[in-house]
């Protein structure tokens, strides 16, 4: 019994004793709810975060049964934060007026927690109101889960079918349920091939085993539509059940479901024993005849399992005997049908061969017929043409009875032919005038056009080259501009230091000097030339005088050979004297200088 001492808007006093009292009450209530609080903890100050969360969650679970918040906090921070926020949300949903957030539970302050817990405990329903039922028995459990589910479904808003995939709808807590009927489909089953599994040991041949192992496709591939899988499986199971029962009846083994009366069942099975097998037999018969092979229908639903029509029970002694007989009969039937089938196959082969031959002959006949047709058409055409020709000649030829002769007719024909030829020629020439005029005009225009296009091309080329040139010139201009700018900047930089006139003066001076030097050089050159000329003259003169002297000496030598010696003496004496004099002069010069 939760004491309803704490009510409505409690004015929380800061009095510690009151607080202690309140805490005690809170802890007691929480213990009653189911929180595992240790005895030592007596005030909310001692509450850990986990304990706070556990307490809140348990209270919320009691207030809102079906709440899926965990009691214990997970380790990861983000999960903790999430849970804290959820708890806060639920609390505010319930109507808690105060400021509540994840921080209230995760980073708790005592006063906040107190307020929240007080609020929650107030919200807790009274014991008397709550009906705690201990579910007992499977039926009760089922009902409980049904009511839970229904409640959950009623609490969620309706959404239309196109928002649900096949009618499935997911809930917040991760569960799902199917709603509506649009996802339903009809019960279409189709026959499946599976290896037979029965309690009775049927002999399965090696070949069948092999077939089942290697060639049978999976049942998911045996069906045309995925919706057919479940119905087909259900049908297959039902069929095998009935067959099983049939066989089991023969062996008098344990009967199947306890909810079917045994006698009635056997009688029903007796009467309808051929039902599952009949379609098979019928289909086999269908193969042997010449009518088209009917698709083997799936065996009809074992109605006798659900029917409860009474029928007179037969004696049990007859039952096993009849069963054996039918089994042998069936085997014989199947053998007979196999024989029939083989026979039919042979017949069909023969007929196929015949048909093939027939087709061949027919083809040949067709081609022959076509050839004949063509051959007959040709003379037919020729005959027609000749007939037309005959008619025309008849028109032209003179009528019988007149005076015309055959020769004349030929002449007339010839003249007519010539006349028409001439007419044709005149027409042709008239046409030709027009034609040639037009043709020449056309050609002329085409030429003109091509010329124009070539002219246009040429102009385009010219234009292009001019454009190139302008571009180049522009480039150059740009470059020159750039250089000019550069130089002007340089000049401006340089110009401040020294004036331009100094440079020019110096240049002029240098030029003058150079000019003077040039003049000097020229003079010297002239002098040198003159001296050289004189030297040359003198050398020439010297040579000439030398040769003259030579001659003279030669002449004188021969003429005055006698006076040579005396002369020679005189001369040598003179020479000696001269030498002495010159030596004396030289010595005097040296002494003087």
């Amino acid at each position: 019994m939760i004491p309803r001492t704490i009510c409505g808007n409690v004015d929380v006093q800061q009095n510690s004793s009151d607080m202690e009292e309140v805490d005690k009450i809170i802890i007691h209530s929480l213990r009653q709810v189911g929180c595992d609080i240790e005895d030592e903890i007596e005030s909310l100050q001692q509450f850990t975060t986990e304990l706070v969360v556990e307490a809140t969650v348990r209270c919320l679970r009691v207030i809102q049964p079906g709440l899926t918040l965990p009691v214990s906090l997970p380790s990861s921070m983000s999960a903790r934060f999430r849970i804290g926020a959820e708890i806060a949300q639920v609390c505010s949903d319930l109507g808690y007026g105060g400021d509540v957030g994840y921080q209230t539970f995760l980073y708790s302050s005592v006063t906040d927690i107190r307020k929240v817990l007080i609020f929650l405990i107030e919200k807790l329903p009274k014991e008397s109101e709550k009906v705690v039922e201990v579910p007992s028995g499977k039926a009760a459990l089922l009902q409980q889960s049904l009511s839970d589910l229904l409640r959950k479904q009623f609490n969620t808003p309706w959404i239309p079918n196109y928002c649900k995939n096949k009618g499935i709808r997911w809930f917040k807590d991760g569960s799902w349920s199917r709603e509506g009927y649009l996802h339903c489909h009809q019960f279409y089953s189709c026959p499946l091939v599976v290896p037979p599994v029965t309690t009775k040991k049927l002999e399965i041949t090696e070949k069948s085993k092999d077939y089942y192992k290697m060639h049978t496709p999976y049942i998911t591939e045996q069906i045309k539509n995925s919706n057919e899988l479940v119905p087909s499986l259900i049908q297959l199971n039902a069929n095998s059940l009935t067959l099983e029962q049939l066989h089991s009846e023969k062996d008098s083994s344990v009967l199947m479901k306890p909810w079917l009366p045994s006698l009635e069942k056997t009688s029903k099975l007796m009467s309808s024993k051929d039902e599952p097998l009949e379609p098979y037999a019928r289909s086999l018969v269908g193969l042997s005849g010449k009518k088209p092979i009917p698709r083997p229908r799936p065996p009809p639903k074992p109605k006798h399992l659900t029917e409860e029509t009474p029928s007179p029970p037969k004696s049990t002694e007859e039952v096993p005997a009849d069963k054996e007989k039918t089994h042998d009969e069936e085997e014989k039937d199947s053998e007979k049908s196999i024989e029939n089938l083989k026979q039919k196959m042979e017949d069909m082969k023969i007929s196929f061969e015949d048909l093939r031959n027939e087709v061949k002959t027919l083809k040949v006949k067709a081609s022959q017929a076509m050839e004949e047709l063509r051959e007959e058409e040709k003379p037919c055409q020729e005959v027609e043409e000749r007939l037309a020709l005959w008619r025309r000649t008849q028109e032209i030829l003179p009528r019988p009875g007149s005076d015309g002769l055959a020769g004349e007719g030929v002449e007339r024909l010839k003249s007519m032919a010539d006349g028409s030829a001439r007419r044709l020629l005149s027409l042709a020439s008239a046409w030709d005038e027009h034609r040639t005029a037009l043709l020449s005009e056309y050609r002329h225009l085409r030429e003109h056009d091509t010329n124009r296009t070539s002219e246009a091309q040429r102009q385009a080329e010219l234009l292009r080259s001019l454009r190139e040139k302008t571009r180049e010139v522009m480039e150059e201009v740009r470059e020159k501009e750039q250089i000019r700018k550069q130089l002007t900047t340089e000049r401006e930089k340089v110009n401040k230091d020294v004036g331009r006139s100094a440079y020019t003066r110096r240049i002029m001076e240098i030029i003058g000097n150079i000019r003077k030097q040039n003049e000097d050089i020229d003079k010297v050159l002239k002098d040198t030339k003159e001296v050289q000329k004189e030297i040359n003259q003198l050398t020439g003169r010297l040579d000439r005088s030398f040769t003259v002297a030579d001659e003279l000496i030669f002449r004188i030598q021969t003429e005055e050979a006698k006076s040579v010696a005396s002369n020679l003496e005189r001369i040598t004496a003179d020479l000696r004297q001269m030498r002495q004099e010159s030596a004396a002069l030289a010595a005097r010069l040296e002494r003087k200088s």
Partner: protein
Amino acid sequence: MKVAMADNVTLLSFCIIERDSNGDVLWTWIYPSITTEQRSLVTRKCGLEGDQNRLQPFLYGRFRSAWYYINSTEVFESDSLPRVKQFALSLWAKDFNPEKYETLCRILSKTYCKTGNPIAMLQLYLSVLTRGSCMTKENGTFFVKEFDQQKNLVNTNVKELIKTFGLETILIYTALLLKKRIIVYHHSIEVLLKSLRTFPALMWHRKTWDMLFPWVDIHPDELMDLRGRQYYVGGCRDASICSRKDLYDILINLPAKEINIAPRAKESMIMTKTHKEIALFMMQLAENTTISEQQVVHEIAKKTGDLLAHLRSLATVNTSDGKPMVCIETLRERALPPALENFLFNLAIAENMMML
């Protein structure tokens, strides 16, 4: 008289296509008229579009039931056709006579070149049409009568053919005999046209050119001609014909000297002892240098005649027209080897002697 008239009415139409200095290909003259299909065909075949320097030789072919002959001429400065570089004269006729039409085309082309006036050409044409002859100043007189069709068969090359293919010539012979669909390939049109004339010579006893399609291009119009027929000998200069297995039972590849048999015709082309005899006989004829082309053709015709006589001996039944026919039962009674029986069966069907 009537026969002569009928002969002259073999000419159907003629037309001129010119290529001028502007590079245009124009149709300048048509008399009396031709259909759009014929027109597009001739434009395709005349070879004036494209390469300017190549001048085509005299060409001919067959379209539907008419024969066309194309003669290309180069125009010189001295001729009276201003601004024209080349022109092609195309003649349509009902009969197959390349020599005759080549001469006629040449005469007409020359006249056109000289006078530059199609009226003169038309005059000559009409004269040939009405009288069977025409007079020209340079070339003398042209007489249609001179070009007898029978002489055509002389212009054949059977010896060459046998020498080229050796023993495989028997395949060509069998295919022609059994009226199969034959396609001949060569990349040069002149060689193709020349060799195509040889094929009818092997079947001298039939004396017809009805199955000949000397020049077929892979174009729907032309292929339509072939498709409607069970039996033809077609020439193609497009190499992709070799991949068109639907168009032939036998493909004769002249430059490669190969004969390919299509799968569906294989069973009818199985060789027997008779075939071997004929093959060896043909080889002997070809190697014999003393006998002429015509004699070769005659000898082969004789051999074929023997074969047909043998077949006729099996013809026990007579139809209402008095024509001897062979029954399947008679054939089976003889208990011949299956290949030979098959061959005789097919031969009888080809010669229209099979009673089915």
